[in-house]
């Protein structure tokens, strides 16, 4: 029981932080910064404790809290940890203090509002991950837009208004269709099983005909795919990343994008398994397309933030590939890849922010020979570059390797049965690794080595605060790369559950698809009952 309360504490701690900031109007900027850091560190420690206490062998939710919230609608405040979200929650709270500490010198305008918004963002992201009730999930999912809108719009670069409006309008469009699908799904569940519930566990039992599943998967999938983002829905991402302040970019790349892949893993695919299987080739194509297209775009960018932004598209494509492979190794790889990308891309964005603070430009052409000027910086940057490429011993290797292994595991048998497309796609995904090495290495080479160009004025190398931040990132990156077995053991049950759910058949009962033409009451029209009852014969 105590641990369940601790999870609630982790979730609501950022709001307490906001309350403190509001309650103490006379706080100096530096005090605000330290206070925010303290709150975030406390949150991370609490989460780390929960992570250690997390039992990998237990099925179902752990540290669960379930309280009635809107009883008439069957909405519960239900949160808990399971194998799906435990690593992502840890990742979110791990990046929290780094984001706060990374913004110490970068943010000088409206400091209080900034940290309040970072807290709100942290709250909504954690809420999205721990929510086990679809209504609650949607609430957090959508509420997350508000702090991000303000963070990009207030502290962003020159075209910040354009970028932030694009980001919000893009993602909100996906959400509104998802809302329609959520309501429809809950009503269909009510019609087939007689229970009104938004709980994930109940919704997994919904039986829907393939046509309805396809429409609902499209609605959910659009929303998630925009957030991942899958090519061709990615165009908001480079703008948002480039214009966002460093903290915004880190959170965007580190956590926000994972909300999309998490959504697919927890909701999109398992809720509509038959439609997922029917559309596997399409989803796989989109995933591999994202890997290759993102990598190609990253290669030709001249803005260092854009390079990392497009590399994110490529890396998230691996996650999607692993999830849709439905192979246990692939799914596990996808989960590790999510965490790995969060750490590595988050670290890279922090590093870009650090160099931007010193030289005030993001043009790659303006840089050169940074290794001579900023040796410590160069070491960290080289390490993160290697992790981004996926060199063995780094976290990037674990994720990408497992995903590719899983993809081949899943597609080889199909090839032997004469279906070649999936195997071709898996092979295509491998080229992403090569392309990744190509663009990241050429980027690092031009950035760190060669003749010294910028900066024009003498600059200081990393200070202690920055070294500590990057040290944390590098330690996490190697830990995940060298000892992946421990986190993998915690997610294994969830991966198996996901696999079983997506493999299940749930078109058993036919539900009348209600359209404007037939304003009839929704009722299940099971085959056998249709034969037995006279009412069914009218159908």
């Amino acid at each position, binding site marked *: 029981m105590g641990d369940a309360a601790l999870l609630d504490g982790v979730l609501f701690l950022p709001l307490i932080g906001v309350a403190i900031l509001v309650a103490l109007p006379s706080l100096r900027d530096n005090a605000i910064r330290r206070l925010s850091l303290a709150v975030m560190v406390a949150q991370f420690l609490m989460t780390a404790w929960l992570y250690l206490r997390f039992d990998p062998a237990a099925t179902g939710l752990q540290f669960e809290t379930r309280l009635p919230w*809107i009883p008439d609608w069957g909405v519960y405040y239900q949160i808990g940890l399971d194998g799906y979200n435990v690593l992502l929650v840890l990742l979110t709270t791990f990046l929290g203090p780094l984001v706060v500490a990374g913004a110490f010198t970068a943010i000088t305008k409206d400091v209080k*509002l900034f940290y309040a918004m970072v807290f709100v963002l942290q709250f909504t992201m954690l809420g999205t991950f721990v929510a086990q009730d679809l209504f609650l999930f949607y609430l957090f999912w959508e*509420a997350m837009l508000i702090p991000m809108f303000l963070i990009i*719009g207030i502290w962003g670069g020159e075209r910040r208004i354009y970028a932030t*409006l694009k980001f*919000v309008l893009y993602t909100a469009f996906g959400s*509104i*269709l998802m*809302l329609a699908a959520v309501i429809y799904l809950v*009503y269909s569940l009510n019609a087939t099983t007689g229970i009104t519930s938004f709980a994930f566990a109940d919704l997994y039992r919904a039986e829907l005909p393939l046509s309805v599943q396809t429409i609902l998967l499209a609605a959910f999938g659009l929303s998630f795919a925009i957030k991942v983002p899958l090519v061709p829905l990615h165009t908001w991402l480079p703008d948002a990343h480039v214009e966002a302040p460093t903290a915004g970019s880190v959170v965007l790349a580190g956590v926000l994008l994972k909300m999309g892949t998490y959504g697919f893993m927890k909701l999109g695919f398992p809720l509509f398994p038959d439609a997922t299987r029917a559309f596997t080739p399409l989803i796989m194509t989109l995933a591999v397309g994202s890997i290759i297209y993102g990598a190609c775009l990253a290669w030709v960018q001249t803005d260092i933030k854009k390079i990392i932004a497009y590399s994110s598209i490529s890396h998230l494509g691996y996650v999607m590939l692993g999830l849709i492979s439905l192979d246990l190794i692939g799914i596990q790889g996808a989960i590790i890849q999510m965490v790995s990308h969060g750490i590595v891309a988050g670290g890279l964005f922090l590093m870009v922010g650090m160099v931007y603070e010193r030289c005030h430009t993001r043009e790659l052409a303006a840089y050169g020979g940074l290794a001579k000027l900023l040796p410590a910086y160069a070491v960290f940057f080289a390490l993160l570059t290697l992790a981004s490429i996926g060199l063995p011993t780094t976290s990037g290797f674990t994720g990408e390797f497992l995903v590719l292994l899983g993809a081949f595991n899943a597609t080889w048998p199909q090839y032997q049965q004469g279906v070649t497309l999936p195997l071709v796609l898996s092979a295509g995904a491998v080229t992403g690794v090569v392309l990744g090495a190509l663009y990241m290495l050429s980027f690092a080479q031009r950035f760190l080595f060669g003749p010294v160009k910028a900066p024009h004025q003498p600059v200081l190398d990393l200070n202690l605060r920055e070294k500590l931040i990057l040290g944390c990132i590098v330690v996490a990156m190697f830990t995940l790369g060298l000892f992946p077995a421990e986190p993998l053991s915690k997610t294994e049950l969830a991966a198996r559950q996901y696999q079983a759910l997506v493999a299940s058949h749930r078109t058993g009962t036919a539900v009348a698809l209600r359209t404007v033409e037939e304003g009839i009451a929704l009722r299940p029209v099971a085959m056998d009952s249709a034969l037995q009852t006279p009412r069914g014969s009218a159908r």
Partner: protein
Amino acid sequence: MSWQTTFTAMLPEHILLVGIVALIGLEIASQARAAFLVSVCVVTAAVIAAASLAATGYAMAPFPGQFSVAPEALLAKAVVLALAVPVLLISRNDFADAQFHILILGSLYGVCLLLSADSFLILFLGIELMSLPVYVLVLLALQRTESAEAALKYLVLGGTATATLLMGSALLYGASGSLSLAAFAAALGSSDAMASVGVVLVIVAFFVKAAIAPFHTWAPDAYEGATVPVTAYMATIVKAGVLLAAVRLFGMETVPRPMADMLALLPLASIVWGNLAAMRQQSFRRMIAYSSIAHAGYLFYAFLGDGAGRFQAVAFYVLAYGVMNILAFASLPRAQDDTARDRLDNLKGLYQRAPFAAVMIGIAMLSLAGIPPFPGFVAKFLIFRNVFAAGYTTYAVMGLIASYMGIYFYLRVIQYLFMSPVPSHVQRPPYGRAVLGASFLCLLAGIAIAVFPGWVIGQF
């Protein structure tokens, strides 16, 4: 029937009446300064009376066939009267005399009558009594020529609505031989031409009053021409009164097909047009007018749903919408004159000068846009849930997509508040205690709705 039953059943109305008489007395005695306090107390007392009667489950028909109260009607009155309290509070800076308060209380009396009407006679009386003082209220800001224009436009179109309502009820009387509201509900599915035309005319009259496209054209001018408290009154209380009266009119009846299409398509057009037109406005009140046109659309969507859930959906929606709207009006910074105050530019960089007010307007805008976790989201969810449940999937999805179009202009306000530099010359007088009180009242109500939506919905 004893006088006691009449007294209890009409307690909120009687309190308002006593208040009006007291205010006239104050005006005669040249004690207008006390008017503000008196009217706030009177309306608060009326809220308490209505709410406590509703809580005891009181139901009575003091004038059978004409006027009756039931918990539902009393609750509706309580909601509308409760929304009037912060509106009165924000009038503190704009109206110092008793006139304003007499007119508002008179109009509220009309709303109460409207919400208890059992026959078209009382319905008509209520609508007129509600509207006539508002025409005058719009005109009260006569320092500007637009006010006269706005009031005239409002009066003429309001008159048209009245005529349409009378025509509709006459036709319904001709078809059914009864002036009772039940005749309307019964005629909803009727194949009789006279009855159907009567039903359509009555619905059109309500559409005009609620500003549903294409009958919305009076709203932007009237809203812009009036002063801030009057606009707030029109956008929240008049709208709530009209919609709750419509709920009473439709009763428990499920709207059958051809009528349901009319009840879906025009509100849908309203949502689309309101949201699109609001994007281009430079005047805050005009923007809110278009926003209110869109919100009237969502509210009429509730009538597609099952008869039993209609009151809950509409009452909860007008409460959440009203509270947030008044919050925005209360936080609107003052400027050298009313026209400058109304310009959206006036909001630029407000966060730098008045962070609390800026955050309040921001919350109100996000809530009106229907973004969770703010109250507007749950309200919208409730309505669309009922529309889905009634089987109108296509209309529901179209309505949701149309509501997406509205997000942009609400975000634009937030962009002005937080992301624009402060114009250097701006001088802003302080808000004053009464207005801050209204903000806090609305904020508390909003938080209560957002944190305990289940409890609030359970009250209806």
